[in-house]
């Protein structure tokens, strides 16, 4: 397993993450910030359940949108 800096296509998301390239060649990402982890989990969900293409601009935009939406929806809830 080889770790590299955050891969091309995710660099504008404000994520200080690293990409882990697995033996099957499919890259997964590892976030180093709470927001980065949130975005990664959302992206994985959108890829798996909503058919978004991994690494696409649309996927990043959708994840960012979900980030803002979650803050609006749950930001007032008790922790």
């Amino acid at each position, binding site marked *: 397993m080889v770790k590299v800096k955050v891969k091309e296509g995710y660099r504008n998301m404000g994520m200080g993450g690293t990409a882990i390239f697995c033996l099957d060649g499919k890259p997964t990402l590892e976030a180093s910030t*709470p*927001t980065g*982890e*949130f975005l990664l*989990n*959302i992206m994985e*969900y*959108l890829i798996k*359940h*909503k058919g978004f293409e991994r690494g696409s601009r649309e996927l990043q935009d*959708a994840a960012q949108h*979900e980030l803002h*939406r*979650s*803050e609006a*929806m*749950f*930001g007032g*809830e008790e*922790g």
Partner: protein
Amino acid sequence: MNDTHAHHDDGYHCDPEFLREQFRRKRNRERNERVYRDKQKSGARVDGIWYVDECGNVQGLQSIVDLGDGFMKGVYYDGFLGLRRNETIIDTEEGKLHFSRLPPEPEKVCADPKAKDPLAETLQRMRAGAI
């Protein structure tokens, strides 16, 4: 027409419960990191050898890893007992760090208590100001 709009949203957005859980995890991690930074600002050396817990006891903290979801795992060295233990640090609802100790490592329990431990010696020297 409203139905059409609703279907569009449902197809695009995450399941609300999934989104809530992810938001909760993010908020917990942010709170943990805030507590961690506050500790640093207060003068406690949380990233070094020494760490002051909520009871005011000085612990020798070797490393700390945020596992997310409100949990951080720290490995520290207890200079008082001369035993190294794994320790799980739980972020309580009040945002304070709370220590939950795991049992000592078996090899440490069975070890000769008089045997010299290089880590214990290092801590003693540090406390004495020799390092």
